[in-house]
C-alpha cells in the first residue's frame, strides 16, 4: 500500500507529520522524497511514458505547468468544492492544499548581534555579507517566488522583471549562498543566517525546534503563494494517490497543516495558541496575491534571464 509523492520532504511544511498521519488513517505509505518542484516536474516529464509517482506536491506555477505538460490528470478530491476558485484548476488537475507567505527566516544567533533586517533594501547592506541565502530562482519554486516578490516590491510587473534582476545583481555583492534544495537545516545550524523562506518554516524552527529564529515580512511587501497537489497521469497506484489527496484536504489533514503554521486552504479555525504565534495580521497585510497563471507563463523567460544575467 504505497503512493509515491514527488517533492514531499519530511523537513518541509511538516510533511513528516502529514505522512505519518496518512499512514495511520489510510494505511497508505508515502515514502519521503526530497526533490524540489522543478526537479519533480522534470522527472515526471522524463518518466511520462511510465510514471513512477502517483501524486505530486508543487508550487502553484509548477502545478499549472504540469497540467500543460500533460503529466497530471484531473481528480477532484473530497472537499474540492470548498477550495476557492482561483486556487484550483477548474478540471481538478491541481488543487491548492495550503499557502504560505514568503519572508526572511532569520537565525538571530547567526547574525552575531547585527540587527534583524526589516526590508528588501536592508539585505543589500554590506553588513549582511555572507549571511544571506535564497533557493535557486531558476530551479526551486521558493526561489522563483522570492524573485517575483522582490520584483513586485521593487515596482516591477510580471511583464517586466528588470527590477528583480537588478536587485539580484546588487545582492551578489553580499555573496549569497544559493542552494537548490530546501535548506531549513542550514538556517538552524547558522550556516545561512537569513534565508528567503516561508513563514511556516520559520515558525516551525522557532516553536518546534526552539531555535532563535525570527520571521520577517519585508517592509516593501511580499507574496502569498499557494502550494498545490495533483494526481499524476497514469500513476502506478492511482487509487492510493487519490486517498492521499482526499486526506490532505480532509479536516484532519488541513488541521495538520494548520498546526504546522501553514495556512490551510479550507476555512478551518486555527487553534488559539497557533494563531497567537503568527505575526499580527497587520504585518500579513503586506502579503499580496498575484495572477498565478501569468506567473507560471513568464517563469521560463525569467529563469533564462536570471541564469544569463545574474549567475
Amino acid at each position, binding site marked *: 500500500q504505497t503512493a509515491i509523492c514527488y517533492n514531499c520532504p519530511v523537513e518541509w511544511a511538516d510533511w513528516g507529520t502529514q505522512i505519518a498521519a496518512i499512514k495511520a488513517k489510510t494505511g497508505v505509505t508515502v515514502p519521503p522524497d526530497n526533490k*524540489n518542484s*522543478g*526537479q519533480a*516536474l*522534470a522527472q515526471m*516529464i*522524463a518518466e511520462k511514458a511510465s510514471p513512477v509517482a502517483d501524486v505530486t506536491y508543487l508550487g502553484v506555477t509548477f502545478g499549472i505547468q504540469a497540467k500543460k*505538460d500533460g503529466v497530471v490528470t484531473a481528480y477532484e478530491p473530497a472537499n474540492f468544492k470548498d477550495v476557492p476558485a482561483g486556487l484550483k484548476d477548474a478540471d481538478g488537475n491541481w488543487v491548492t492544499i495550503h499557502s504560505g507567505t514568503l519572508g526572511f527566516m532569520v537565525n538571530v544567533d*547567526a547574525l552575531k548581534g547585527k540587527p534583524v533586517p526589516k526590508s528588501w533594501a536592508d539585505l543589500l547592506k554590506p553588513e549582511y555579507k*555572507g*549571511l544571506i541565502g535564497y533557493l*535557486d530562482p*531558476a*530551479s526551486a519554486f521558493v526561489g522563483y517566488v522570492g524573485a517575483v516578490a522582490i520584483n513586485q516590491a521593487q515596482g516591477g510587473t510580471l511583464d517586466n522583471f528588470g527590477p528583480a534582476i537588478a536587485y539580484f545583481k546588487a545582492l551578489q555583492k553580499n*555573496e549569497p*549562498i*544559493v*542552494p*537548490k534544495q530546501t535548506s531549513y537545516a542550514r538556517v538552524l*545550524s*547558522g*550556516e*545561512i*543566517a537569513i534565508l528567503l523562506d516561508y513563514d511556516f518554516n520559520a515558525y516551525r524552527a522557532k516553536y518546534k525546534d526552539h531555535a532563535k529564529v525570527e520571521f520577517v515580512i519585508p517592509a516593501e511587501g511580499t507574496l502569498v503563494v499557494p502550494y498545490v497537489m495533483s494526481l499524476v497521469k497514469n500513476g502506478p497506484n492511482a487509487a492510493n494517490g487519490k486517498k492521499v489527496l482526499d486526506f490532505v484536504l480532509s479536516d484532519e489533514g488541513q488541521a495538520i497543516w494548520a498546526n504546522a503554521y501553514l495556512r490551510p486552504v479550507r476555512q478551518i479555525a486555527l487553534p488559539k495558541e497557533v494563531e497567537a504565534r503568527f505575526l499580527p495580521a497587520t504585518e500579513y497585510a503586506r502579503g499580496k496575491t498575484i495572477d498565478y497563471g501569468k506567473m507560471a507563463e513568464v517563469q*521560463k523567460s525569467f*529563469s533564462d534571464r536570471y*541564469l*544569463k544575467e545574474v*549567475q
Partner: protein
Amino acid sequence: MPAARLIALPAEKGWQTYFAVLTDSHYWWSLVNTLLLSATVTVVTLVLGAAVGIFLARTPFVGNRILLGILTLPLSFPGVIIGFFMILLGGRQGLIAQVSDDLGLGRVTLAYGLPGLFLAYLYFSLPRAISTYHAAAQAMDPALEEAACSLGAQGWPIVRDVWIAELAPTTLACAAVIFATAMGAFGTAFTLASKVEVLPISIYNAFTNYADFATAAALSLSLGLVTWFVLFLGRKLDASVMETR
C-alpha cells in the same frame, strides 16, 4: 541503446541544439570553467599526490600503512560527502571561518566559491593520485636513482631526471582518470551549490529547470566528447612515452 538515444535526443529539438555549448555563451563559459577547473585540479593533484605517494613509499615509519589507508579512504566517498566536508571546513560555520573569526579576520568563507570547488575536487582526486603514485614509487627501479646519485646528482636533479621521468607513464594515466572524474563530478558541485557553474550542473539545470532533455543531452555529449578527446590524447602521448623505454 541508451547511448544511441542520447545521441538522437537533441535532434528532436533541431540540429543546432548539438552546438548549444558553442552557440550559447552561458554554456560556453560553463564548459570553459569546467575545463580550467579540472585541468588545474589535475595538475595540483598530481604534484601533491606524487609527493605524498613517493614519501609514503620510501619512508618507513610506524603507522605508514594506516596513514596510507586513511589517505586513500575517500576513494569510496560519494561526491556529496565531499561537498559537505568542504562546508564543514570552509563554510560559514566551518573550521576556517571560526579560526579566522577568532583571529579577528572576520568569517572567511570559501566553500561556495571557486576555492571551495577547487578544494573539494582536490579532496576527491588526491586519494587516487596518492595510491597510484604510492604503488608506482614502490615499483620504481632503485638502480636509476642510485646511478644518478653515484654520478653526483642530489636533490632536484634526481626529482627531475629520475622520478619525473620514471613516473611519466603513471602520471599520464593518473592524470587522465583524475581529469575525467573532475570533468564529470556532479555530487560535489551540487552539494556546494557554488556560484561557479560547471557543465554537469548546467546539464542538471537544463534538465530540471525546464525539462529540456534535448539540451541536457547535447551538453552531455559535448562534455563526453571533450573528456574523451583529452583521454585519447593522453593515451597517444602515453604510447609515445612507452616507446622510449
